[in-house]
Structure formats: C-alpha cells, structure tokens
C-alpha cells in the first residue's frame, strides 16, 4: 500500500506519542483525561487511537473553501489536515439532502471531494461539530462508526466509512454553526499503511 512520506512520518509520530503517553501515565499516576502529551482534556478518552487525527488537526493545515454545490468542490487528501471555510447553509445546493434533518438558520455547510488510494476504513475527523454525510454519486454511504468529545480542542468528532480505492466521494457537512473548522481524512486502521 502506498502512502505519502508525510503519512509514514505521522505514523511514527503517532506510535512515539502513544508510547510516551502510556509511559508517563504509568510513571506519574495521572488519569487518562488529564492534559498530557499534547492531548487536551477529553481527547485522551477516545476509545480509538486518534493520534494521527490529533497530529493532523493540531498541526499546520492547508486552507480550502468548501464547495457550495454550484461550483467545484476542493479535493481533500488522505493524511493531510485542512482548514475549511464553509458556506452559509441557506446558500448551499446539496446534491442530496443531508441525512440528518437539522435547523438551517445560522448554520454552515459545504462540499469536498475525497478519493482514497487504498480501499479500507477511513475516519472523517473534524475540529468542530457538524453533521457528516458521505455520498458516492446518488448513493449515501452508511457510516460504520463514530465518536465525539466535548473538551477535545482538535478533535470534536469523527465518523468512519468503508471506502473503495479510486472512487470519488463527496463529503457533505451541514448543520454546524462554525464557519471555519479543521478537517482530515485518516486511515482508521494504521496497520493498513504498512
């Protein structure tokens, strides 16, 4: 499986920081929810290893403006962090209705394109609350898992999907009240990156 050099580096960082967290927790008897090792209060209670998500969303991110449905949508690459500027939802033309019926007043939405090089499970990870849908053409994908935490600055929620290599997906965000948020697509199973 081929991934970018940066992704491989991130894997190493994740492994290193996970070890550091474990070691220092054991040494100093601190509970997992406490601020430690770059993980804010709340982040440490995620049941999955979200180290890569935190690295991407807490680091330097590329700026993009989400599509409004009328024009093209920006491409979001696996293993990169993005700062996404969303569109007032009343101006959005969603290709398909979002699956969660939510208040549109004061909300922001946006579209992004995703294509993964390797089939597998991926997380859509966000720094702020927003409803996440993933469409493949007219088909709305069922998510396979999700989680969220208040009090985790760089990872408010993630939603995972099984994705096919080379297929174009449209990420639809809706319902949130933050116009700017961080987003990343992360392989859910790091072993697949070996």
């Amino acid at each position: 499986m081929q991934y970018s050099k940066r992704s491989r580096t991130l894997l190493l960082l994740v492994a290193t920081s996970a070890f550091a967290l474990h070691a220092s927790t054991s040494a100093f008897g601190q509970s997992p929810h406490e601020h430690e090792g770059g993980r804010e209060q709340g982040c440490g209670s995620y049941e999955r290893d979200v180290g890569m998500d935190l690295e991407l969303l807490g680091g330097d991110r590329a700026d993009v403006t989400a599509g409004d449905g009328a024009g093209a949508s920006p491409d979001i690459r696996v293993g990169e962090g993005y700062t996404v500027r969303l569109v007032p939802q009343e101006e959005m033309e969603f290709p398909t209705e979002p699956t969660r019926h939510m208040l549109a007043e004061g909300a922001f939405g946006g579209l992004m394109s995703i294509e993964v090089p390797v089939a597998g499970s991926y997380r859509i990870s966000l720094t702020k609350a927003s409803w996440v849908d993933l469409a493949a053409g007219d088909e709305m994908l069922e998510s396979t898992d999700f989680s969220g935490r208040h009090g985790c600055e760089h990872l408010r929620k993630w939603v995972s999907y099984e994705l096919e290599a080379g297929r174009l997906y449209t990420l639809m965000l809706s319902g949130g009240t933050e116009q700017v948020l961080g987003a990343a697509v992360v392989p859910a199973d790091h072993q697949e990156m070996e």
Partner: protein
Amino acid sequence: MVAGLFAGMLAATGVAASNGVAPLLAPDSGGAATASGDAREVLAEYLAGLSEAQYRTARRGEAFFNTSFVPSPSRAQVRDGLGPLFNSGACRSCHNSLGRGSPPTDPGQQPVALVLQLSTRSADGSWGMDPIYGANFNPFAVEGFEPEGRVVIERTPLRGRYADGTEWVVDQPAYRLEDLRYGALHPATAISPRLAQPIIGMGLLQAVPEETILALADPDDRDGDGISGRANWLHGKDGEKRLGRFGWKSNQPDILAQTVAALSQEQGITSSHDPAGNCTAAQRDCRAAPIGAELEIEDADVDALVLFQRVLAVPPRRNLDRPAVARGAALFRQADCAACHVPTLETAAVADLPALSEQRIHAYTDLLLHDMGPGLADGRPDHQATGSEWRTPPLWGLGRTPDIARGEFYLHDGRARTLEEAVLWHGGEAAAARARFIALPPADRAALIAFLRSL
C-alpha cells in the same frame, strides 16, 4: 427442583397456544400508529394521516431535536443559549437514533445520555434539589466555563448461576462525583442515574386514559399476587394534582413537561415554561453568563418539539413466524412478566391526531411504579416514588436496539448489557419473575429473549 416444576407446568399447558398469548404476538404494536418500517431510520417514521401543517410543525420539531444548541452569542440565534453548564447540546445526542442512550464506555469519558439527578433531604424529611448543583449534575460547560465536575463510575461484577449451572455475571455500578467546581455536595444529597429513554410511541402513551392506568394499580396488593403498582401523583406549581406517566419514575405528567425539564436542566435552555434554567443561586458565574434571549426557545418551537415526539410511530414487530418467538411469548406470560409489562392498553379519543385515537396498543407497560428491590434502588425518592420504585418501562421497539445503537444498555442507568442481564436485575415485586427466568432451561431462556427481540 424449581426448574423441573416450571418446565413441567409449561409442558402441561402447551405454551405456544396458551390463552392470553395472542395479544403478545400482535404485529401492530401501535395500532394505526404502527410504522411501515420503510423509513431510513426505523424509529423516525411519522404517523400516517398528518395534515400539511402538522407535518411542517413536526419537521420543525425534529430539526430542533436533532440540532445542537450553541453558546451565546451566536449568529444562529434560534438555537443559542446552550448552558453554560449542560449535559448535552442536542436532544438527539442522548436519544441515540431516537432510541435509548448509552452510558460512558471508555475510561475518562463523561456521560452525555446518562444524567445524574440530584436531590437533598431537608431536616423536615422533604426532598428538594441540591442547593448548590441543582436538580441535575452537568459534566460539561461551554468554552470559558468549567463543568460542575466529573462523574466516576465504578463497576463491580456480581456472579450467579442459572438453574442449569450456567454462570452469569452482571456489573453493579457505583457513582461518585469528583473535581467539584462549586464545592462539596450537600451531605444529604442523593444521586439518581437516569439514562435517556426511547421516545417512540409517546403520543400513544400520553393518550392512555388516566382511569386505565389507575385501574391497573394495586398499591396494597389486595389480590395477593405480590405485585402492587402505584401511581406517582405529581403536584405542579399551581397545586394541580397530575398523574405521572413519563420518566424512569413516572416523574413527569406529559411530553411537554418532560421536554421542558430536559431543555432546562440538561441543556440550560430557558423557556416560558421554565424561565429559571439550571443555574442555581450558588452558581454566580453561571447566572452571569451571556444568554441567548430572556427565553432561549420560543413557545412555538417547544410546541413543535412536543408534536414531533407525539407523531413518532412505533416500529412493527419482527420474526413473529419463528416458533421461538411464540414460545417466548407464552413464557413471558407464564413467568408473570405481563403483570407489570401489561401487553395491551387502549388510548382515548385524540381529536387532532386520529392515528393515536382509540387505538389498541401493545407497549408492555402499566405506567405505574413498582418496587424493584435493593439491587436497582437509587435511594432517592421522586415525588411519591420511593428510592426503590421504578416505572415499568415500555418494551415496544426493544428489539431494534442492536440495529441502531453501538452496544446494548438497558435499565435506568444502562447497567444491563444484554436483555438477560436486564431480567437478572429484576428484584422486589419482580423477584418471582426473575426466579422463574433463572429456573428456565437454556432453550426457553433463549425463546424468551427471542420474544423480547421481536418487539
């Protein structure tokens, strides 16, 4: 010995075809308010026959239910005013897919759908909310504020054996509050954990006549069957006496009261029905926080939230053609589960929603309080409910839980991870039913569970 007697009794009666089982196998749990089952979300289907205006209003309510409130000030004025202390931003976050919530499953994770209610015993023996922390413990706060503290849950495994020798293990949870932001709890404060319940069929349950519920009550157990059933009479601010029928202890009289209480105490959203919100006098920073408006949700939007909950249909039964389900239905009856989980009720006339009107429904509840024994007791009275009494929860839709939730969590605090565990926690008035379940051979236990999963 007991197992042998019970098995013999079942064989003698011919379980599958016994009298009284037919209602337990009715396919339409909600009568005309039974869902087709075709909706994308099985618990989100509306009643048939709504007017255009009702549909629009219900959709507005659904949008509010699904949408998180946000801190003030916000561009999204229709939904600002969250907290600053809260349990959850959105109703939906607790009522997963409109079904039951889940307690924390990860170390350090704070509860969202599991609310710890607080009340304090006064010197005169009466109970009121905790003077510092209020009626609910809020483990979350908006940015710039600190939450009230942290909930710690410790679980102790308890073991036992079925009559056939099979071992079972259940977890007894204990709750502790730490890192308390406003100082220690009052020493006489009791904690009652309450998990968010499914909201399907609430319109039907609200339409069950008071006389029907009271006719099922037997507070002094005059029939001597060991099962009483008490009404929880509530006294409103205006002194009006009302029958409780919603909430884990029948501590709310109707959907409106339940909704307004959740908005206020769990989300910090004020309304004309509860303009005070959840900040106590001792929480000065909370009271000084920016507010969305004097009243943070308008009456019309509260009404929409209530209508949305009234129009949710009940999912259809499944697997009724399976022999195990029929056998399980008979066992349910024979084990006397139906004494509290009453299979059939009838609703009164409902002028505005014909699908709710005069329906024969199968909710499996009597909406009454029953003493469930010390194992489940929270030691915290709630209106007229004692610390060991709980409302019989409706069972309709139970079988959909694995389809819509990550994990199964039953009973008032989600301690039961399987339906078997939920039965094993029954005590008090239900101790005899539990004993009958324990006495069953494995195939019959599985049949009883298959019946519950068909609901």
